[in-house]
């Protein structure tokens, strides 16, 4: 399952030593395109590797989804008949569990990539898993996307200032707070917020994503309701996320402060605020863009618990429900969607970076 990297390495080498013919000559004249192609190749390899690992991970685990399905059906629809061999065989085919492991894998990948089909779900039985997931996806993207970006912006700005004014009391307090809180699960903050604002003060709702008496649609009431219900879960992600970014930005900022070009800028008589924003900040937000992509998977992990606490109708809640009922297709689907989103985001940020950072040169 790790046999994916060699091609990447060999491409690298052949570019360096190849005589300038055809495609290679063009690539050496267009280093940025060469970088983009190589990066995209790595993305495909990573995506394929990760999806393959998760597929076998789930299939090699003990447990029989078909037996679970039949049990669920018996419970839900008072299916008193003993499941016949025929019925079991039919469900096996439907869930893609017939044949050996390798042919199951080929079939799953083929269905996933060619038809976007993840097989039927169990939590919502004949509905396909991808439909269940697509219904939950927008909620997670909105909640997690907005909170993660907001935390990043706040964290980089506050972190840069904390590094800039290092040694001052405010900066020291902020830094120590960040060290203490950067690795706390979002869930802890969410729980305290729920207890204070929802249960004790009764100011904000504790569950769901919008007031169920309002019909969903693009109306001011509905949007207002969504914002109100999203405030607590969002806030818990923003608070902890911001502390994390403060810490890492400060770590990037402080070594920069001794650089000659900052001394020169000061000698020129530039104002402190201008040096901070135009000279120092630029050198620490760029690496943080890459770090943002890398942290997305981790943010998703934390978000699962927050969604579950608030019963937010996103991917996290879907995942937990699916796991409680051993719904393989949905669990695998949610995992794959999360992997796909994170790897794609990292790819886009990596491709964007050379456009933002003039120093990045990829043709070495």
């Amino acid at each position, binding site marked *: 399952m790790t046999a994916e990297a060699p091609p990447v390495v060999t491409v690298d080498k052949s570019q360096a030593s190849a005589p300038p013919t055809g495609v290679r000559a063009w690539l050496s004249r267009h280093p940025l395109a060469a970088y983009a192609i190589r990066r995209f190749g790595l993305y495909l390899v*990573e995506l394929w*590797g990760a999806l393959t690992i998760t597929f076998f991970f789930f299939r090699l685990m003990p447990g029989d989804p078909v037996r679970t399905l039949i049990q669920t059906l018996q419970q839900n629809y008072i299916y008193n008949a003993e499941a016949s061999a025929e019925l079991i065989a039919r469900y096996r085919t439907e869930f893609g569990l017939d044949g050996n492991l390798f042919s199951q894998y080929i079939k799953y990948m083929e269905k996933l990539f060619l038809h976007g089909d993840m097989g039927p779900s169990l939590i919502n039985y004949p509905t396909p898993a991808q439909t269940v997931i697509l219904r939950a996806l927008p909620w997670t993207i909105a909640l997690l996307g907005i909170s993660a970006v907001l935390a990043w912006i706040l964290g980089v700005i506050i972190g840069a200032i904390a590094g800039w004014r290092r040694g001052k009391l405010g900066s020291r307090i902020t830094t120590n707070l960040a060290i203490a809180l950067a*690795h706390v699960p979002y869930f802890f903050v969410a*729980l*305290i917020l729920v207890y204070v604002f929802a249960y004790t003060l009764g100011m904000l709702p504790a569950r769901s994503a919008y007031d169920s008496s309002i019909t969903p649609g693009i109306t001011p009431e509905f949007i207002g309701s969504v914002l109100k219900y999203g405030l607590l879960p969002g806030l818990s992600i923003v608070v902890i996320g911001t502390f994390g970014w403060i810490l890492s930005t400060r770590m990037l900022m402080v070594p920069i402060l001794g650089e000659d070009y900052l001394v020169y800028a000061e000698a020129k008589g530039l104002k402190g605020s201008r040096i901070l924003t135009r000279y120092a900040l630029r050198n620490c937000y760029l690496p943080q863009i890459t770090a943002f992509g890398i942290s997305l998977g981790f943010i998703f992990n934390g978000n*699962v618990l927050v969604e579950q606490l608030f019963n937010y109708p996103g991917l996290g809640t879907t995942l937990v429900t699916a*796991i409680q009922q051993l719904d393989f297709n949905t669990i695998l689907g949610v995992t794959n969607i999360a992997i796909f989103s994170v790897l794609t985001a990292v790819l886009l940020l990596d491709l964007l970076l050379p456009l933002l950072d003039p120093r990045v040169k990829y043709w070495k």
Partner: protein
Amino acid sequence: MRLLHAVLRTIRNSRRLATGLAILAAMILVALFSPLIIKLIGGGTNPIEVAAYEKWLVPSADHLLGTDQFGRDVFAMVISALSVSLQIGAIAGVISTVVGVIVAFVSGYKGGWIDGVLSTFTGVLLVIPTFPLLVALSAYAKNVTLFQVGVMISIFAWPFAAKTIRSQVLSLRSRPYVDLARVTKARDMEIIVTELLPNLLPFIGVGFASSALGAIFGLVGLEVIGLGPGGVIDLGHIIFNAINTGALTLGAWPMFVVPIVLLTALFAALNMVNIGLEEVYNPRLRGVAGE
């Protein structure tokens, strides 16, 4: 002896490291003496037995944190759960660090395509959301021992250690004294054990702390959604109990606030150890210590 001196000097140099270690030491002490403390609280009876006391007692001198829905003393439960959380951190931390060190050395020292494969694999494991995989794995882990839970969580915690250590191996590999050892025809194993390992100890410490942090974090995550392995009662499990039995609506805040505060202190301590060690040993950050 020399090692001990070096360790003490390092601790004296960094207030952050010292604070982190002090908090950890205090928690480990409490965990070590937890059977005794629980016995003292019980005063003859077992305070964490079902119906040991009345249900839902509010905090008082007899029950510092009150009792839960089964009449168990919450303070005693928290103490025993803290010890479980620490044990998981230690077990998973050690396993992850060993795996991480091996992967980092093979990858960083050998280089070439092996490094390409291993570091891509480590990188992908760090980037993709692995929590669903851990949750799925735990759905099958009923009635497992503490050690087995530690092993299970290590599967997802070792990349933290491997990444930190690999980057250090890369920077040490080309140092003159390593070249010297190579010229004198020392075998790879010899170079790794006698030249590289001692210089990497602080970063192995960082790897251990981050893996332990990741492991405790992972188990708490499993527990609070009610999917923790059966029979393992850590701090996350107490939080889960609190939510599920309606402690939120009843206002029984000690049941979830105290575990949260303890875990936050634990995460903070591990993070202080990490940052303290890096500030002392990473020359680029040396000016950073600030304080």
